[in-house]
């Protein structure tokens, strides 16, 4: 019985497959500008690609690299925000779902967020979106990276308390981005 349990246990250990090519690109046509407005519940149609990226350790780790390579940290820092809004809290001006974050990166947002359409290939945008979700503890704890590539003053992002995406509310320390 013990041997059987051990074999069954080992057989259950499946290594996450690394999807190196990513699903085919469809262009950002699944996301429209008109139905987006700050702070509302998401009328954005769910994208089937979001699921493939969201709980996947390989994609989140890639997103972590791209976050630095494409200078997201130049404005958002390591999630704490500075020039741009914080990404590790519960407040989302343009929605905290995978689809919404994807749309914000591709289309850009007022007051400084550039549009990365055509500049970042779609699979990479999804990977960055998955990492951005992980920054506020919204990724699967088993999939989120346990250590950053560089020294950081924040705890490992798989150890961050979950900040469920909520409405952007103005707090006493909230900076004005409008």
């Amino acid at each position, binding site marked *: 019985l013990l041997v059987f349990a051990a074999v069954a246990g080992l057989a259950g250990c499946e290594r996450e497959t690394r999807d*190196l090519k990513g699903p085919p*690109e469809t262009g950002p046509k699944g996301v429209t500008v008109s139905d987006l407005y700050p702070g509302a519940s998401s009328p954005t149609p769910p994208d089937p690609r979001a699921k493939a990226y969201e709980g996947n350790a390989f994609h989140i780790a890639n997103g972590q690299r791209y976050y630095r*390579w*494409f200078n997201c940290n130049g404005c958002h820092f390591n999630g704490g925000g500075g020039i741009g809004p914080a990404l590790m809290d519960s407040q989302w001006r343009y929605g905290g779902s995978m689809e919404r974050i994807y749309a914000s990166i591709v289309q850009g947002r007022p007051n400084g967020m550039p549009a990365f359409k*055509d*500049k*970042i*290939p779609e*699979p990479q945008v999804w990977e960055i979106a998955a990492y951005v979700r992980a920054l506020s503890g919204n990724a699967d704890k088993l999939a989120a990276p346990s250590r950053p*590539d560089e020294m950081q003053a924040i705890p490992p992002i798989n150890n961050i308390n979950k900040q469920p995406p909520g409405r952007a509310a103005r707090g006493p320390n909230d900076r004005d981005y409008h």
Partner: protein
Amino acid sequence: MRQGAGWLSLGLLLCGFRAAQTTLDPAADQAAQSDVVWRTMLAVCGLMYLLVMAFLAWALLKASRRRAEVPPAVGHTAAEPALERGLAGWGALILAGLVGLTTVSFLVDRTLAEVGRDPLKIKVTANQWWWQADYEGATPSEQFSTANELHLPVNRTAVIELHAGDVIHSFWAPNLGGKEDLIPGRTNYLRLTPRRTGVFRAQCAEFCGLQHAKMALTITVDRPADFEAWRRHQLGTPPAPSNAEAQAGQHLFHTRACVMCHRVGGTDAGATVGPDLSHIASRPTLAAGTLPNTPEALAGWITDPQGLKPGASMPKVSLSGPELSAVVAYLETLK
């Protein structure tokens, strides 16, 4: 026939032959010194091996002749002075062999650390899975960066500063010298003093991930005048594209994903995430020795990098046929 080929290859192995990637054809002081250690080891260990085999054969022969005789009493045998002398000599031989090997290794180790006068300084950074080479200079205008290729002047020591961008790699140019590990957060140094011009191949020698095998570096050893000409050329910026297709390609390069990672000297493209493409058309290979540098291979590489080198950081960028040929036409102007 097969045996003949075997002996032939062994003969070639021992006599040395000319090849772009072999330790048996040293083209630099450092590789020649390592070769001395290797040949000394082969001689000492080969001699000991032959002696052991001869002794075993002798013992077997002797035992088969003695079989008929009465076995000696257990626990009480007569002294065998010849055997005792032989064993003492054997011990002395082992000691002499080990001392000899240690001495040679120690002396060669010391000479490997020597730096000649006026060394050429190059910073090599290994990434998954390509090599970045930064040639240092007295002023920023004397510095330049290239990828997956090194040019070295003959008869001048090059001090190579080794860095790693992600995981541990190892720099190994069998004809010239190495291996030396490239370790994240640590700086290692390797000295190379080439003594013969030619084109040599270096390779990552520490398993570093999915495409470890496709991580090669072409090292060209030039005469000093040729090296200086190459260096001057690398310091310059590529000319602006003249024909319409290449100009369209440059526009695409700047408006699509290329510009997010790659740098082209003299233009707005200044990212340093991927290899510097300022003089890509003059390099011998693409994607760290994965492909020969031809327009066809370049187009193939841009079309499907994940098919040619799965896991590499180069993403697939969606380009239509005309867009692809325009980008390739532009990159081909970057001589």
